[in-house]
């Protein structure tokens, strides 16, 4: 690990930035690769870094989630993993059309009535023509009625298509939500399974730090340090705590590089 700040450089497993200006937040940002006043060259942090990579007194921690991530960082897997993967693939295969839909409604006119009217008019035209009378008005009426009937049929077909499409789209969305629910349930089960697998080393680590706290009710800072010790955080851990006698002791306890800051 190489840390550069304000013309100075720290190399190795320990960087003691106390009494230099960067806040632990800025250092954590630098490790993530965000804009920051200092630069940290280190392996790209894994997912565990987001949970326990920045340890400070005001931190929050979703303990069970972090423990599951730590278990995964140690190469442990949950028995639900393959089923989750299968369901995710199934879910991702569902394609949805998110474009705007044009609603189309069926006309109010009764098609049977219109059809009868067209037939009547046709009969009248034929009768007039057979008698050699002027059928032009009747013919115009017939044309108008036939046009209305045809427009109505087109609109009815469009409305039917709209209904079918909407229903198909909603069926797909419903199927996707069911899959999402099943995935979420399995993920919860997987998290519990992973927490169980890592429970003992975690409890030992908490006990080593503070024998008076209940491991699953430990303050976030204590829990985060314990998880940093049992997990494989990859990136360095940024510490803003005086719980260890020295930065070297902290690095030794966690078992990886640390960067110590004042706050």
């Amino acid at each position, binding site marked *: 690990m190489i840390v550069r700040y304000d013309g100075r450089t720290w190399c190795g497993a320990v960087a003691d930035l106390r009494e230099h200006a960067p806040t632990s937040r800025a250092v954590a940002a630098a490790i993530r690769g965000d804009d920051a006043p200092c630069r940290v060259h280190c392996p790209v942090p894994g997912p565990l870094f987001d949970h326990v990579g920045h340890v400070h007194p005001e931190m929050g921690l979703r303990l069970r989630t972090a423990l599951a991530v730590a278990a995964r960082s140690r190469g442990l897997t949950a028995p639900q993993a393959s089923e989750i993967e299968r369901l995710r693939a199934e879910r991702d295969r569902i394609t949805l059309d998110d474009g705007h839909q044009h609603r189309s409604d069926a006309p109010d006119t009764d098609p049977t009535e219109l059809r009868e009217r067209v037939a009547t008019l046709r009969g009248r035209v034929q009768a007039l023509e057979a008698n050699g009378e002027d059928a032009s008005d009747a013919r115009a009426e017939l044309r108008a009625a036939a046009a209305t009937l045809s427009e109505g049929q087109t609109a009815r077909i469009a409305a039917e298509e709209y209904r079918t499409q909407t229903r198909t*789209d909603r069926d797909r969305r419903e199927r996707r939500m069911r899959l999402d629910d099943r995935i*979420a349930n399995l993920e919860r089960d997987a998290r519990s399974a992973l927490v169980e697998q890592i429970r003992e080393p975690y409890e030992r680590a908490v006990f080593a730090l503070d024998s008076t706290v209940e491991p699953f009710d430990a303050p976030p800072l204590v829990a985060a340090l314990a998880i940093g010790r049992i997990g494989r955080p990859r990136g360095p851990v940024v510490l803003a705590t005086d719980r260890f006698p020295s930065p070297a002791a902290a690095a030794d306890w966690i078992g990886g590089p640390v960067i110590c800051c004042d706050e």
Partner: protein
Amino acid sequence: MFLVITYSRSARTSLRNITRAHEETTVRHLGRAALLAGTEFGAFQALRLREKHGRDVQIERVEPFVPEDVPAEVREAAATYEARETATIPYRQFASGRDLPDPGTLREQDV
């Protein structure tokens, strides 16, 4: 009233938040769906969901139902069939031979 049906986990969560925050506008909450009051505020909440979650939200306008809204023969058919003696007889069979509409006719008639 507005029937709001959600089709994603996030839309369902938003709907739950709305029905919890606005009990006076919520006529009934049923899991991933809710019946909201037919007021401008009910419409406002439904539209907010629609803006946020797009087609993962279905909004329908619904009306209270009274049996008198439908033809008498339909009501009679329902009452007679539910009062039948043989529980296992399907309606189609039950209707034939009696003065009751057959299911095909019922399906074709909008009310």
